């Protein structure tokens, strides 16, 4: 998936870190939007190890839970409800902080 470019003006890009890789995002986007625009569709694994990703994109299905580094440790958040911020650190699987 990619961003619509024609006729759209976006703020200058910022950077979020996903599983160690730096990806660009624009303020105002959700984390889910930035991830799929970078072709990261695997947002978590279920307990059998199968990949799960964005389904409803409105906070209902809980399929897009990722780990976000916060002051007090990793927190689960729905990527589709989380606005991007410069320097945000994301993991799609549980790793030591």
């Amino acid at each position, binding site marked *: 998936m990619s961003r619509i470019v024609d006729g759209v003006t976006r703020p200058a890009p910022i950077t979020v870190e996903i599983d160690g890789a730096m990806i660009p995002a624009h303020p105002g986007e959700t984390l889910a939007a930035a991830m799929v625009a970078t072709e990261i569709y695997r947002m978590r694994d279920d*307990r059998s190890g199968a990949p799960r990703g964005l389904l409803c994109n409105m906070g209902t299905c*809980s399929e897009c*839970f990722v780990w976000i580094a916060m002051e*007090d*440790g990793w*927190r*689960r958040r729905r990527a589709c409800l989380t606005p991007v911020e410069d320097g945000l650190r994301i993991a799609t699987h549980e790793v030591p902080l």
Partner: protein
Amino acid sequence: MTHEVLIIGGGLLGCAAAWHLARAGLAPRLIEARGINAGASGQNAGSLHFQIERRFLEPGGTAHAQGGDIVRLNRLAIEEWAGLEDQLGRPLDIHMHGGLMLAENEADLALLSLKVARENELGLPTQLLSGAEARDLVPRLAPHICGAAWLAQEGHANPRILADAFADAAKSSGASIETQSRLLDLRRDGDHWQATIEQSGQIATARARHVILATGHWTARIAARMGLNIPLYLAPLMMSVTDRTAPFLPYLIQHVGKRLSMKQTDDGNMVIGGGWASAPQKMADGLPDLDAPPHLVPDNLRANLAVAAGVMPCLRGRSLIRSWTGMTCISADQLPIVGEVPAAPGLHVAAGGSMFTLGPLLARMLARSIIERAMPEEIALFSAARFAHLNAFVVPS
């Protein structure tokens, strides 16, 4: 069509009663307006609590006067749950590894001591633990927890699968179970009841000698349409679940002075509840809409989570992944109302408090009362007859 028993409602109570009646050869018919387990039976937090409940210890509570009967029933419920997987022949996610009712201060501890003494006198083997002993069992309890009442048989079960297990077993034993099948009208017709039922747009009538209203929080309104007063009041609640964490809590956690239930699922999620209210949606006339899910009350959610994190500080590192609401009902004296309604012979009810923990046992007792044509003496305290005075001016219709 004429049936010996028509059961209205496909929750835990109705499905379990259907199974017991079917095994006795009564071939009951069960109708459910939505789907099996769609109401409170599948919405509650799944606690198996057998200590005298916090709400009975509050001012006006009935623990003192009726404690003996409550404890006696809880002991029977323990046996019921312990035997369920064998009886139904399948795993049901039932965990009975013990439960702790916590005390956070001296006042809590005094109440807990009284409660344990009373329970022991009544034959329930609760034990009073010091704070240190409680932390030996659950090291992550907060350091200020100063005591706990321990009961080895408490625990939790999975509310999402139990009613279906009963429904399957009931069908195998000859019960007829119909979903999307709504009761439109119920009236007396000689020595039978006549029900008008809507199913897939078709309207049909059925006659039955006995009708069980296993309809949870809808019971009072259905009864009211028949002119009967059953004192059951709406209890809209909320429950929450956190993300998964490595297993550390095999026990049920409750609090003697605050509303709290907490347990960890097989997958590692923490389920948190304890009787915090949600807000029913309203109909045009201002009355609560019994068919719509209640709204979450953010202040109550925060308060519930604060109580949980207060006794288990590691929860502050967890993320809430979902909260949900559901409606149950509570009777005028907080005890379940079970059995035949004296003003309406052949009409049986079962609702009004602790219906997950007590449900399998009360369903068995209710079925027995129909099969044996007499109320089992174990549940005399819960008989609908105690509210017979409310129907003194009712003309049975």
